């Protein structure tokens, strides 16, 4: 009896001790929260170096894009301690700064001599600053991203198609530089038989649930003349959001959806777009640049078969692209802020950023992207650089969520469901956005 008691006590002590040791070993583990996508996997790989250097372990909480905002905004709103570091969407900056979710990084940047001048300006404004265009930093630009296009270079280079296209449209079949050209190319390929398979013109964003159709439609609207507000009078939207040019832009997006997308593509976003391109359904594919490394490596459509082009110009020659991407922030509810800041310092390092790019992440550090070898480092590198030079972002207001929901509804109602006119949709959007800003006391 005594010996069994001793044995039990011994085992209990051993288990307790091992648990304690293991707790000590993992006490400094950091949890990084982000979306579940290819760059996140690259970051897991990259972070192994951080653990090697500092002994701080990294844990990751990745959530699919469809639940990303819901999951992590809930976490932040409930002051949860799950995430020590978070790579939050660019639109979250305003709300997260005003609601105290993120640690302000100015003092830390000053102390560690991290300068925002070292990063691509658009990414600093988009991912780090709140209020915009003021030197108040809440994140380090982490993942540069922008909407651009891929196309089937192998189809475009078929002599018989080139000949037919030239005869029909009078210009050489190639990556389009204007939206009119893009539509002509899309129409040309729509329902065409290539290699015994019916193919379609283009995959564009039409998703209703989160932000898809807004990101897609804005890509066109910016270049047609849409502006969020009067540049001289903030929050004055009448005549800017629903300007005649913006109306034409939205009409164009609908015409592109109607004429040239694959059947059933009424709720298509990043994943569906990649699927459509990878399965050889479409000649062109609108998507964020983060998808490009994966597509480039794809056995069926990658390598020499794929080409990239910047979001085309509007009728007046203006050319913009929807900004994506995110900055990395320290969560103010974390108990491990010091270690989290260590990670940010490490991540801002030039060599780490260079490796980040080589692994499939998109660095925002000038030293990486302005390196003379950068444009030739990947087939899509130049298109990425050109795209990042023309970016515009959605409202980064603290109330971005209702603003986004309004545009999702108005655009989907018109573009996909065909209800009302483009003018109705944009007039409705002005009304909705006005209500949001009135609720916020900004109007």
């Amino acid at each position, binding site marked *: 009896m005594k010996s069994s008691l001793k044995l039990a006590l011994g085992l209990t002590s051993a288990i307790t001790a091992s648990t304690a040791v293991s707790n000590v070993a993992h006490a400094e583990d950091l949890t990084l929260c982000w979306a579940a996508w290819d760059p996140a996997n690259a970051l897991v790989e990259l972070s192994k170096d951080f653990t090697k250097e500092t002994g701080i372990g990294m844990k990751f909480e990745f959530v699919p894009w469809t639940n990303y*905002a*819901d999951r992590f*905004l809930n976490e932040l*709103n409930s002051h949860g301690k799950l995430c020590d570091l978070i790579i939050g969407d660019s639109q979250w900056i305003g*709300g997260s700064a005003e*609601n*105290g979710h993120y640690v302000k990084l100015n003092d830390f940047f000053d102390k560690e001599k991290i300068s925002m001048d070292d990063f691509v300006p658009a990414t600093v404004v988009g991912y780090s600053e709140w209020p915009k265009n003021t030197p108040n930093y809440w994140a380090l630009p982490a993942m540069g991203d922008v909407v651009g296009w891929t196309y089937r270079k192998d189809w475009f280079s078929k002599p018989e198609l080139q000949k037919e296209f030239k005869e029909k449209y009078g210009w050489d079949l190639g990556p389009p530089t204007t939206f009119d050209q893009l539509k002509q190319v899309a129409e040309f390929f729509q329902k065409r038989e290539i290699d015994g398979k019916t193919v379609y013109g283009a995959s564009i964003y039409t998703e*209703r*649930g989160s932000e898809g159709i807004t990101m897609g439609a804005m890509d066109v609207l910016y270049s047609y003349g849409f502006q969020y507000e009067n540049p001289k009078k903030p929050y004055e939207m009448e005549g800017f959001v629903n300007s005649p040019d913006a109306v034409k832009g939205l009409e164009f997006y609908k015409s592109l959806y109607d004429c040239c997308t*694959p*059947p*059933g*593509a*009424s*709720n298509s976003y990043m994943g569906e777009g990649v699927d459509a391109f990878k399965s050889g*359904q479409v000649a062109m594919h609108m998507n964020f640049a983060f998808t490009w490394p994966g597509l480039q490596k794809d056995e069926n459509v990658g390598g020499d078969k794929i080409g990239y082009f910047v979001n085309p110009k509007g009728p007046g020659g203006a050319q913009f692209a929807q900004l994506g991407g995110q900055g990395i922030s320290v969560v103010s509810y974390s108990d491990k802020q010091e270690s989290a800041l260590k990670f940010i310092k490490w991540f801002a390092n030039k060599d780490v950023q260079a490796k980040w790019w080589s692994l499939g992440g998109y660095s925002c550090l000038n030293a990486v992207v302005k390196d003379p070898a950068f444009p030739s480092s990947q087939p899509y590198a130049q298109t990425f650089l050109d795209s990042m030079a023309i970016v515009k972002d959605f409202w980064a207001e*603290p109330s971005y*969520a*209702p603003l986004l*929901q309004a545009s999702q*509804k108005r655009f*989907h*109602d*018109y573009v*996909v*469901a*065909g*209800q009302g006119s483009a003018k109705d949709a944009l007039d409705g959007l002005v009304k909705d956005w006005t209500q949001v800003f009135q*609720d916020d006391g900004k109007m």
Partner: protein
Amino acid sequence: MLNRTAENVARATPEPLARKVRGISDKGLAWLFISPTILLLLAINIFPLFWAIYLSFTNFRANRPNEVVKNLGFANYQRILGDQDIWIAMQTTAHFVFWTILLQTLIGFTLAWLIDRKFRGHAFWTTIILVPMMLSPAVVGNFWRFLYEPQIGLFAYAISFVTRIPPTDIQMLSNVSLAPWSIIIVDTWMWTPYVMLICLAGLRSIPEYIYEAAEVDRASNWRQFWSITLPMALPFIMLAVLFRGIENFKMFDMVNLLTGGGPGSTTEVASITLKRQAFESWRTGYSSAFAIILFVAVFGLANIYVKALNKVKQR
């Protein structure tokens, strides 16, 4: 064994406590037993309800806990009742509730009536019919989303085979006119067995001697159906309608998985609108008011219906 355990517990109970327990009345003991449940109910049902009622009069937003909460009076209710989009969502909900109940009741009762004939293999067919109901709505939603796929889905091919319309033109989830029906079809496929089960219980509860008496009176089959089967099964049918009505008024999972409320807002039922306002736009006070309106609507309608059901039962 149990007696011995009870005796041990009784012996181990300290005398003062035992005296107190002995002094408890039956009613007191009953309260003692049900009090944990009542407390739990208060904590997870009643308190949130009252909290939601309170929030419905404010501008509270869950994503801005630090902001000053203002009392808005009935402004949220006024805004909801004056919002055209909310009324469209309510109409969409009513459309779903009406058609799903109509189809499920008709098909469910017919199936129950056929199964009740007790033909050879009826037990096997009953089991087969019940399968959709046993699946998770998440599985059913995804399963049908693939079936409806215009390029690879079997549904489009089946319709195309009959109608000769190209399958790629049969876009159930993208087409404004077809999308609502795509959800009605799936809900009917999944929940008709449930209605069938309740109707079957009703049909099996009709005493055999009533039919024997009708046979003696030489009543035709049709007459027997109208005068015996239908009136006696009616309370069960009405019960099934009540259950399905309440469920479909709250319909969320199927719509969310199949269309997400689209295309546009064509299939945006009230629960989807509520979710968007509460958890995407973070208008907590506003969405609480909407939830209260929905609750009152369902509660009121269900009450009226239950009264009608009781009258039918008393006949």
